[in-house]
């Protein structure tokens, strides 16, 4: 019986019951390796990188990026993109801050409000993209501005003072930890695990990949493409709401307009570095998590090494090129074989 496979692929995993491809891709394995090496190097060359005082804030700072990145993974897998998350975060943050400070809402309720606001923003993005039939990058460029406008209006050129200390549960301080790990990061793990499970074990999740692979064919097999395309944007919006609270908690008792600036690119960087293809159809949440850790490690590392903080951006840029380049190379090698 002729073996019709073009490339030798060992039957990985158990024979019975394993019905999906391997859980860990090459990219992710490499990423884990890179992270380990980086942490060791930083531990050697800085006074105290590998200490709790260093790692805990790192995890806490990585949390908002990871939260948004998780949602962004689903968006990018369906061949979309969302550049408006930074402005969305600002809006959610200021709404929650005002509710807590001016209306004395308790933190959980305020969180709910923030999540709802985020979800609505995400819904707007999703609707405009699917109904308008326009490239997501243009639409989200535009909504980014609109959200920023809304956020600025609520801020009204002031800052919000007096964020209640109860938010510290989400923050980077001692109140925000469980067994030494920041709550926010634990939240990230829970959310990431949930979406990972969804995208791997449910039909709806697998349909994201189908849509990203070939939207037209997906429609032909009966997938509700419009609905499935909107969901990732809404999900991202909801997660932005949570990330907004974490970002607020990570800061001081004063919330400024600059909250979350640049996080859209950090999130996209995390997703792309994690091995998700920007053209859709491929990727996993685990990679994004590792990507977020890498981005934050670079930022924290640069500071701890005493280098100019802006160099972090440079390294992130290089990391993007290397990660995507490696992915492209791997794809090309696979295609050449078939």
């Amino acid at each position, binding site marked *: 019986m002729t073996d019709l496979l073009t490339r030798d692929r060992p039957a990985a995993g158990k024979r019975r019951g394993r019905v999906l491809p391997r859980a860990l891709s090459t990219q992710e394995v490499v990423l884990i390796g890179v992270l380990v090496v980086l942490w060791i190097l930083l531990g050697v060359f800085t006074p105290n990188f590998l200490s709790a005082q260093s790692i805990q804030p790192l995890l806490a700072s990585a949390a908002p990026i990871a939260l948004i990145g998780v949602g962004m993974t689903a968006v990018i897998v369906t061949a979309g993109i969302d550049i408006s998350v930074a402005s969305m975060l600002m809006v959610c943050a200021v709404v929650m801050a005002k509710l807590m400070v001016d209306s004395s809402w308790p933190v959980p309720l305020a969180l709910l409000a923030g999540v709802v606001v985020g979800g609505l923003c995400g819904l707007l993005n999703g609707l405009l993209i699917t109904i308008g039939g326009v490239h997501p990058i243009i639409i989200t460029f*535009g909504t980014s501005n609109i959200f920023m406008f809304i956020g600025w209006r609520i801020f009204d050129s002031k800052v919000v003072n007096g964020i209640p200390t109860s938010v510290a549960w989400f923050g980077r301080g001692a109140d925000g930890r469980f067994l030494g790990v920041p709550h926010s990061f634990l939240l990230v793990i829970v959310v990431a695990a949930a979406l990972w499970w969804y995208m791997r074990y449910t039909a709806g999740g697998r349909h994201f990949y189908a849509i990203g692979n070939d939207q037209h064919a997906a429609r032909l097999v009966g997938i509700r493409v419009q609905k499935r395309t909107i969901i990732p944007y809404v999900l991202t919006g909801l997660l932005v709401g949570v990330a907004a609270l974490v970002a607020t908690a990570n800061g001081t008792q004063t919330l400024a307009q600059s909250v979350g600036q640049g996080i859209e690119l950090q999130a996209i960087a995390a997703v792309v570095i994690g091995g998700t293809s*920007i053209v859709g159809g491929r990727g996993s949440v685990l990679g994004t998590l590792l990507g977020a850790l890498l981005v934050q490690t670079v930022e924290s590392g640069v500071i701890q090494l005493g280098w100019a903080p802006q160099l972090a951006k440079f390294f992130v840029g*290089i990391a993007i*090129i290397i990660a995507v380049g490696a992915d492209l190379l791997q794809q090309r090698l696979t295609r050449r074989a078939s």
Partner: protein
Amino acid sequence: MSGKHAQALAPDTTLIAQTRPDETRAAALMRTLLTRRELMLVVLLVIMLVVLFGLSGAGVTSGPYNGVTLASNLINVVPLAMLALAEMIVILTGRGAIDLSVGSIVSLVSMAFGYMYGIWGMPLWASIIGAVLVGAVLGSVNGALVAFLGFPPLIATLATYYAYWSLAIVVNDQQPISSPEIQALYDTARSLPIFGESFPRIPAGVFLFLIPTVVVVWYLVSRHPLGRRLYAVGTNDVAAKWAGIDLARTRFTAFALSGAISGLVAVVTVGQFASARPDAGNAGSGMALPAITIAVLAGVAITGGIGRVSGVVIAALLVTWLNAGILLLFPGNHGTQYQLLALGVLLVGAALLNGYTNRKYHIIN
């Protein structure tokens, strides 16, 4: 796969009418306005100016909005229009090509220019050429990543956006360069009574930078063979390849040009602020956003192959003068806020309109 063409296709005889005998006047007018974006923009521009002039006359605005306002605001049109043209060149090549790094190139070249002219004492003309060349090199990195290594343009320019921005900041320890020669450059931002004393003064930058750039880009896109290739690749890159056009070279050139224009914009901003600042192109949300907005507003299709210089220039005027008007209608910080809203709404609206128009009239699948 040889199977593809022999899959007997149904004979294609759909004749999309060249004449539209049963089109009403109104529908014909709508079609003209929608497909000739420049016309629609001119109409919108005129309407906007009439409204703003009217509001100014009625005293609603916090300051006069008149011919002088229009003329003096032209200084803002210069960098925006130039960058929008740069974006147009890239977006024309199709397949979602875009350049997110233009703002960072402006920042980095600003610093380079600052070094060349302000610190190393190179003559001005040499520094300007140097700036353009450095910009071209930076754009070529994007071009190489996209055209020769197959990176998606979004990712390549995202990475260089980061890399160039950080280099700009780090290269002079986050300090701007404001040597005396640089400060003297402020003269270039002066306004000149070109058309006689009774006519508002036009900023020199328009003549020194904007008009030459518009002319050169127009020439490249409409009269030089490169323009043909850009449109061909953007319309159908497979057909372009089969027709013997070098896809990689065309895409590479587009990004290199975008970088070169960004380099020239760096000179403009240094002159305008009399200082070479490391965040020249990245302040606020960056320069890429308004540039892309103007290009989309001008009807440049993100799928490629559609876009005209005239549209970009008019769109730039529209956006800049609208911004000026907004500042007068909503003084203080409110003004900046509403400018942002206007930009966002314009972008979304223009994008939706582009999509609708292209599907309906341009027979794009």
